[in-house]
Structure formats: structure tokens, C-alpha cells
């Protein structure tokens, strides 16, 4: 009898554990509603990145916005990635609880095709006039609000001079001391495209050569999912080379007293572009337009460039020389590997699968 009783206890424990897993899989996202906002008052629900991005954006953009529009209350819903934001917005499609989303353009393009976002009304968002055509959303959707690019992170003690080629990732001298974020992370997708280009391939047709080359690199990779993040891995000496975003890399370089550096290798890099998007049927559309307009102001973009080294998208933003030297150039001077967002949305699953099955080693 006793044994069976204990069995029941274990069963209950197992059921609880299963419940935890399953409820964890349920997903879903919550956000506070609002409604009845005007252009200068009410509530505004913003969905954007978490962590240092949230901290810096809050200090550099949201706080000054609140000072300017004290009657608009901003609820910041943070997500680790644009994919998570898209997932949250898809869940709210029938009754949106979000007004503005700042996310990667490869994901916002998907949101546009899925009817999650509205076109931007240039009269309600006059600062759109300062966004050059190349950064304006296709078909009038959310424009580019900031730009960054994939950089090579390096330990400055190991590399007193920044490495100038991505080939350093294949150097046996650094085997076991490299962190690479595998797809679906944009960093891993970008590395695939960069390697493909280095191998003389057209990645839109085939990535066979890139895969063969990445397989050579894989045994030397310490982690394909760096924790707590790619920057801390290099800073703490767990690795000496890694993939990362230039903006955060610059920020953490300062934070770590230059223990880590970030550079753009000569073979080229991939832009990481964020757009500001107004959610279709947003409960607080007028306030959303006011915020989007402020996010596209020279004041907000300069402040955020100084805080987290994202390049502005508007032509009237003037950066101090020392900041300008550290944000990604947008004047054509940097070798850019073009990663077409529409192609990427179709290739993301396939490339992720290839990495998992063929490249990542145990």
C-alpha cells in the first residue's frame, strides 16, 4: 500500500512537472490596454527590445518624450528578440493591445505582409520627411528608425590590433575560444551570408560552400548560444572572439574599460536595421503617431546614438565626431553584404535547420 501511495505522490509530482512544461508552451503575451488617447494625452503601449536596449532607450528617448508630453503614459513591453515581438503581436491580432513596435526590419516586413501594421500617415508624422527614401518603408509602412551592423568582437588583450578578417574565426590558434550565435539569431544568419560571400557563392541560390566552411569552424566554437550574452563571454575571458552587434559591442567596450573591442572585417558585414511601426487598429493611434514622430526626430536619434551607438536614420541628426566614428556608417563607405529581408524570411527556417543538423557539433 505504502509503495502505491508513494507512486501516487510521484505521479502527482510528474503531473505538476508536466503542467509546468505545458503551461510554459502555452505562450501568449499580456499587455495593458489603453484606448481613448489623443495625440498629446492618454496611454501608449510600446513593444521593443529588453536589457541594455530598454535601459538606454528609456533614458535617452522615453524620458525626454515624457517630459515633452507629460500626459502620455508609456507602458514598455520588452522582448528578447523581434521574433518574440512578432509572436506577441500575432497573438493580439484580433484585439491589439500594443500601439508601437520597434523591431528588426526582416521581422517587421513579415508583420507588414501579415497585416499587423498600418501605413504611416506623413501628415501625422511630419518627421518622416527627414528620412531618406532608402530608409522609408516599402509601400508606406514603418520607416527605419536606427541602424546597426554585425561586428566581430575581440578580446583586446589577445588582439592589441583589431583583427581585419572574418578568417580569424577559423584560425586554429583560437579554437575553443569563439562564440557564435547560431540561427535563428540574426547574427548566425548574417555569418552564413558573409561566409557564402567569402566563398564566392550567391546565398540566394545555394549555401553549400558556406556550410562546408562553417563545418570546419564548428569544432572550435565554444558556444553556439552564449550566455548571459555574446559580449560578457568575451569580457569575462570565456572566449576571445565572437559575433555581436556593433552598437551593444561599443557600449560594453566602454563598460568593460575596453577589455573587449568590436570591428567590421574587410570582407563586409550585414546591416541590422530597426523600424518603428504603428500597429493596425492600435488602441491609442494618435499617441502612437506622436511617439513615432518623436522617435524620428533628430533630438531622439542623436540622444540614442550617444547612449547606445545606433546610427540615426534621419538626415538632420548631427552626431559628435567621437560618436560618429563608432556608429555604423550609412554613407556607403562600409562593405555591406546585402541580406534581402524578404529572402531571409523564407530562408530562416531552412538555414536554422541546416545549422542544427549539419554545423553544430556536440
Amino acid at each position, binding site marked *: 500500500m*505504502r509503495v*502505491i501511495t508513494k507512486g501516487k*505522490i*510521484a505521479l502527482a509530482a510528474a503531473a505538476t512537472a508536466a503542467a509546468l512544461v505545458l503551461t510554459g*508552451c502555452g505562450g501568449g503575451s499580456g499587455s495593458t490596454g489603453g484606448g481613448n488617447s489623443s495625440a498629446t494625452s492618454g496611454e501608449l503601449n510600446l513593444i521593443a527590445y529588453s536589457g541594455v536596449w530598454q535601459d538606454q532607450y528609456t533614458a535617452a528617448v522615453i524620458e525626454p518624450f515624457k517630459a515633452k508630453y507629460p500626459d502620455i503614459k508609456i507602458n514598455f513591453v520588452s522582448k528578447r528578440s523581434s521574433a518574440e515581438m*512578432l509572436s506577441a503581436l500575432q497573438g493580439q491580432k484580433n484585439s491589439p493591445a500594443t500601439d508601437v513596435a520597434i523591431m528588426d526590419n526582416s521581422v517587421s516586413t*513579415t508583420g507588414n505582409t501579415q497585416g499587423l501594421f498600418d501605413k504611416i500617415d506623413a501628415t501625422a508624422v511630419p518627421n518622416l520627411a527627414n528620412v531618406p527614401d532608402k530608409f522609408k518603408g516599402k509601400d508606406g509602412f514603418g520607416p527605419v528608425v536606427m541602424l546597426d551592423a554585425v561586428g566581430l568582437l575581440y578580446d583586446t588583450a589577445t588582439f592589441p590590433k583589431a583583427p581585419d578578417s572574418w578568417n580569424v574565426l577559423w584560425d586554429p590558434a583560437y579554437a575553443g575560444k569563439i562564440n557564435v550565435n547560431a540561427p535563428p539569431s540574426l547574427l548566425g544568419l548574417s555569418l552564413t551570408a558573409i561566409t557564402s560571400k567569402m566563398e564566392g557563392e550567391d546565398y540566394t541560390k545555394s549555401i553549400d560552400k558556406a556550410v562546408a566552411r562553417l563545418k570546419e569552424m564548428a569544432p572550435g566554437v565554444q558556444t553556439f548560444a552564449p550566455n548571459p550574452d555574446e559580449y560578457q563571454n568575451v569580457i569575462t575571458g*570565456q572566449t576571445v572572439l565572437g559575433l555581436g552587434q556593433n552598437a551593444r559591442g561599443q557600449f560594453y567596450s566602454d563598460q568593460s574599460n575596453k577589455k573587449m573591442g568590436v570591428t567590421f572585417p574587410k570582407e563586409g558585414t550585414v546591416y541590422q536595421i530597426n523600424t518603428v511601426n504603428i500597429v493596425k487598429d492600435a488602441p491609442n493611434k494618435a499617441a502612437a503617431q506622436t511617439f513615432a514622430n518623436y522617435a524620428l526626430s533628430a533630438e531622439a536619434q542623436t540622444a540614442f546614438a550617444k547612449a547606445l551607438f545606433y546610427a540615426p536614420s534621419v538626415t538632420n541628426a548631427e552626431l559628435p565626431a567621437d560618436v560618429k566614428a563608432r556608429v555604423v556608417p550609412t554613407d556607403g563607405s562600409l562593405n555591406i553584404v546585402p541580406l534581402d529581408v524578404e529572402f531571409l524570411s523564407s530562408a530562416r527556417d531552412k538555414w536554422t535547420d541546416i545549422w542544427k543538423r549539419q554545423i553544430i557539433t*556536440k
Partner: protein
Amino acid sequence: MTVTKTQTPAVRRAGAAEGDLELASRRRNRRTYLVLLLPGLLGLLVSFVFPLAYMIRMSFNRGAPDGVIEETFTLDTYIQPLTDPYYWRVTLDTFQMGVTVGLLCVLVSYPVALFLARSTSKYRGLLMAIAIAPLLTSAVVRTYGWMVILGTNGLVNSSLKGMGLIDTPLKLTNNMTGVTIGLVEIFMPYAILAMISGFGRLSPQLEEAAGSLGASKLQVFTRVTIPLSLPGILTAFLLVFVLSISTFITPRLLGGGSVQVLATEVYDQTTGLLNWPFAAALSVILLILFGLIIAVYQRLTKKIGG
């Protein structure tokens, strides 16, 4: 006779009244139990049954790229993982990880549980609290602790290097070794508690009796102590196994992307690739795996229980 005749209905009435009272009281009790159970049942319905039903329904939809969910009724989401060797490997790795962590956890927790179960010290309560104290800290924090200890420049590698035992750091993290070490430590308190509660039949008198009949200490341990503590061992193993195959935080953080188990696969499909139907199907497969293991466990415990 007359008396009896006149008394019998009265007794009967009294008896009937008593019976009615008992019945009414029983009904009242049953109603009280139901009312008391209701909040719990409602909670379970909302937090477990509804999400489970939603998830099972979701698993029959079709996931298009970029998170679009096509409402339909298809078995594709099940056919794909069941016909793909990659997912068989992931399932096998999940199972292997659960068994390894379960066995190691039982192995290291057994002496502690046995000591605590037998201890007559006045500090037993304190020792018990120390043994389960790690539960006061979140598994995420403890996993980060292991990342620091097992890292390239962590405590273990630095110590071994300092002693001149190694030149290049051992790879103790970002692989299955790190995940196993982390999970064993994280689930030890559960194993200890489960074992102590399952040691009910263990009695020092039986061991003494075996000793007085000439059994050596080893014989007493292998032929008396272990068989009598087997229910506790099995409960602990099952609990740790189930917790291990469903955990996602530690394989994710200590696995470094190289450890692919069903739980991490579900996470990737849900948050990275937004393929909820496929993630739901994988979760159902994981649930079936749970069910099978629990069925085997019940048969085993019945056998042991006689």
C-alpha cells in the same frame, strides 16, 4: 408482545431518524468536500486542462513560415518528427539525459537521504533544512552559478591549472557534461525528499537482526537496506527523470546551443521560428513519453510492493 409491538416502531423510528441524520450528515460532508475542492479544481481547469486542450488542438494546425498558423486538422506536425531521424536523435538524447541525471542524482542523494532518515541527532531538523535549502534559490541562479564554476576560467579549471594538472582548460560547460552536472545538483533536494518519504519500511531492527544472524555489513546493505529502500529510490528516480526531461533552462544555459533536447527544441520552435503547431506536437510527444515512463514505473512499484 404488546410492549414489543408498541416499542418496535418507536425503535425503528429512532433508528430511521438516526440513519437519516447520518445520511444527511454524510451528504453535508460530501457537499463540504466538493465546495472545498472547487477552487483547486477550477484552478487546475484554467491552468492545466484548458492550456493542454489548446495545445493538443494547436498541434493539429499547420505552421507556415514566420508564425502564420493555418487552422486545419493535419497530422503533418506529427509525421514530420516521427519520420525524421533528427527528431528521433533529439528524443533519444532527451531520454538518455533523463536516465543519466536520474541515476547520478539517486547515487549522490542516497547516502544523504539514508543518513537523514536514520539520524536521531537533535540537529536532524537543521540538517534536513540544509539539505533542501538549495530549493530556496531559483534554478536559473544556480545554473548561472554552475556557468561560473565550470567555465574556461572557472573555479574548477583555475584550480586544476593552479595545481599543474592541466595545461588547457577542460570543456566542462556548453555541452552535455555541464548540463548533467548542473541538473544533478539542482534536483538533489527533490531526490533526497522523495527518498526519505519512501524509506518507511526501512527499520534498524531488521538490519540488526540480519547482522545477528551472521550477515556481513555489505550483505546487510545489499540484501536488507537496499531492497527495503527501493520504493524510495524508484520514486526519486522517476521524479528526477521527469523533471530532467521537461527542464529547459539548464540545457539552454549550460548546453551552449550544442545540447538539443525536446524542451529546447520546443522553445526554439515557439520563440525563434514561431512554429507553434510543430512546437505543440513536440510537447505532446514529450507528454506521451512521460505517460509511458509513469506506466512502467507503476508496474515496477506494484511488483516491488508484492
